[in-house]
């Protein structure tokens, strides 16, 4: 199969790669770049474990081909911590017990990153709708909502 060249910036680092046209973005991130924080939980774009942020928008990376990200900027969970400082969402998940098995957590964090960039004063209802494309089997979502609220408060204070 003829390969396609892509140039993509991931967590601030430029990557040039030759990819098969059918290679899913999530496999490119996990297997080519070894960024295994982005997880796979389904085949139908329902679970959101693979969510990453592309040019500011939350995207399910199992639903895009690697070939589609040429020239774009991607943020994964590994890129949230800056200069040894956790993102307020990461702190929120830690402080509010927003995770248990941790498998959905990277997707929840990346959905939240894009969501809170546009809205630092969300209502509970807005948060619940924002994460409705991310499934969690452990937490019952209560503490994920609290983690988002924690992060929103920090962002309003100018935490980042």
């Amino acid at each position: 199969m003829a390969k396609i060249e892509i140039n993509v910036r991931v967590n601030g680092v430029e990557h040039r790669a030759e990819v098969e046209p059918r290679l899913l973005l999530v496999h490119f991130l996990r297997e080519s770049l070894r960024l295994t924080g982005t997880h796979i939980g389904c085949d139908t774009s329902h679970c959101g474990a693979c969510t990453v942020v592309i040019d500011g928008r939350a995207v399910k990376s199992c639903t895009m081909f690697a070939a589609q990200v040429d020239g774009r900027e991607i943020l994964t969970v590994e890129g949230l911590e800056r200069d040894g400082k956790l993102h307020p969402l990461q702190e929120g998940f830690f402080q509010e017990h927003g995770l248990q098995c941790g498998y959905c957590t990277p997707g929840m964090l990346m959905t939240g990153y894009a969501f809170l960039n546009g809205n630092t004063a969300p209502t509970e209802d807005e948060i619940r709708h924002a994460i409705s494309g991310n499934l969690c089997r452990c937490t019952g979502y209560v503490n994920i909502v609290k983690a988002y609220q924690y992060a929103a408060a920090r962002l309003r204070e100018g935490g980042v």
Partner: protein
Amino acid sequence: MPKTSAEIGGMGHSVKRKEDPRFIRGKGNYVDDIVLPDMIYMDIVRSPFAHATIKNIDTAKALATPGVLAVITGKDLAAYNLHWMPTLMSDTQMVLPVEKVMYQAQEVAAVLATDRYTAADGVDAVEVDYDPLPVVVDPFKALLPDAPILRTDKEGKKDNHIWHWEWGDKSATDQAFDEADVKVTQDIYIPRIHVASIETCGCVASFDKINGKLTVWMTTQAPHAIRTVFALVAGHVGLQEHKIQIISPDIGGGFGGKVPVYPGYVIAVAASVLTGKPVKWIEDRMENLQADSFARDYHIAAELAGKKDGTLTALRIKTVADHGYTDAAANPSKFPAGLFHICTGSYDLKAAHVEVDGVYTNKPPGGIAYRCSFRVTEAVHTIERMADLMAHEIGMDPADLRMKNFIAPDRFPYKSALGWEYDSGNYAGALKLAIDRIGYTDLRKEQAERRARGELMGIGISSFTEIVGAGPSKHFDILGLKMFDSAEIRIHPTGKVIARFGTKSQGQGHETTYAQIIAEELGIPAADIAVEEGDTDTAPYGLGTYASRSTPVAGAARAVAARKIREKAKKIAAYLLEAHEDDLDWEPGKFFVKGSPDRAKTIQEIALAAYTNHPQGMEAGLEAVSYYDPPNLTYPFGSYICVVDIDKGTGEVKVRRFMAVDDCGNIINPMIVEGQIHGGLTMGLAPALYEEIQYDESGNCLQGSFMNYLLPTAVETPAWETDKTCTPSPHHPLGAKGVGESATVGAPAAIVNAVVDALWHLGVRHIDIPITPPKVWKALRDAGVSE
């Protein structure tokens, strides 16, 4: 109040989790994250038919695909007698079929390739010639005399009946029914569901040909038992237990689904032995939902007898259990229906009798838990539905009926009509708190007002009793392995600790809570204690984590091991302080001379002395091991109250409020306990309203992906309200009981009871879960409410 300071972080402190720093950075180590040099990938060819003869498997095109290395079929495994394996219930299960397939999505062949995409190409290229056979989906039809016999592999098998099991005093029960003023009867189907942990199952199997050692990283809740099973199944081809290492890395949720040995694991092991290369096999979601073990699937016919005044007297249950094509349930050996006979619940019934018949059908095997202890959810669902039916039947408030029939606190330890000895309980206390917290009386007034306006609002109660912590070795084993669990604690010279266990966390936070228990017992800060689980080469043997057994069993082991260490530490302290042991007192973290608190030795000073200055005649070091065999099970309980509103136009049920009062005895980490309850409630909501796996007449799975197997999202899930009472277990060293599954066990009945409560005045007596909008809409239409 916690006995230790926040710095030590013993029991009762909401210590932040030690696991989280890696998970919030995307640095967990789940099985699909593992990459080994020369690793190859395995993918599985699955059957499109639910029952068919395999006439031929043509692998030529697959093998001609560039990158495909091998195709493994049942015949290849049969050459080593590895094509069948035993189930945990001593039935047999195919690894790969030779003659016929028994359910849709059954493994038919495995393709090995250089990468996962090529392996999938190879799967597409394998050509299998099937000859379809008659399919049996309905377990009742499976029992008819003219039903096709499914297990033709079993010589002389003349029907699809697996076993009959009954428990209780039949004549006393029949007599109680004869004497009853009131009887209610109800057929209740508790449908087939799937745990659907967000991480699917998989493994990396790596066989080292030179040393003859097999290492398998796998998604398992019970690594030690898996090692023994592998040795028993493959010992004859040279895989012996000292040469098998099972490593259970970070697990993305288990809930019972990661207890069984799936064919994929075994094929991957065989593939690694065959090729000499590490083999990775990771299920996709559709394989996970369509082929991995299911839960529930109980067709229950229940009868409850009572007096006019609301006194409940007897329970009679007959159940048909659909096991799929083999009995691969994960139950203790002696209990083919698990702990279903806890079904008298929280009530003081005089008599009860239970019968269960296991049946083969053309469906995937299973009968595992879905976040519960061996069929306790089926039991709780039945008694809580029946109690509610009785209350409605005689016109009594369901809360009053429960209060009237609860086992009173002074009756514990209480021997139930079905033979269980409940350790402790205060059921009325929990229900009263739930009633107060949710404002039950006002809600009943509101309901009457709304009903007068034609609105549909319901209030449902579930006052459940769980049975967890399996279990005492006298009655509990899996394949003969007694259900003890283990702890090994080793104190280093500087007072820091490594502790290893036979259990395995899948999100429960063992690294944190286990450290807290040791902190409680030894006064060493939880932060100084490293907890390891899941590596069979290093951890002591244990039966694993499921059925809420980690705290009741391994938690007790850890307390006992820590107390052994404290005994030795006391001797060292006496030596160092030049005092008699009897003259020493303990407070968390140090021994001191009675009356002279400044004459003290900290546990850290004692640890150093254990390696540098221990008494003559005493062995050096400070460590202990405990294999704990619990004297009894533990019986957590709670009362849940649910408020629902029903849309008359669509039949949609909305859970407006849900108050959960739980009692799990003494609590190790309140934050983690509350989190477990939130998650458990959501996995109670799920089967109550959304989840079910169904099959059409041809055996096609109708909910084989997340397109139609509906996990609740944050939008459907209510903002759970929680509270607690505390009734310690009298026999557990820490007074703890276990909590991970209570909410999943107790919640569904509260939701169904609320829905039926909203509709009772329209003539609705029962709706089977999941209570979907079409079911409610149909009930409303039948009652002349909806059009």
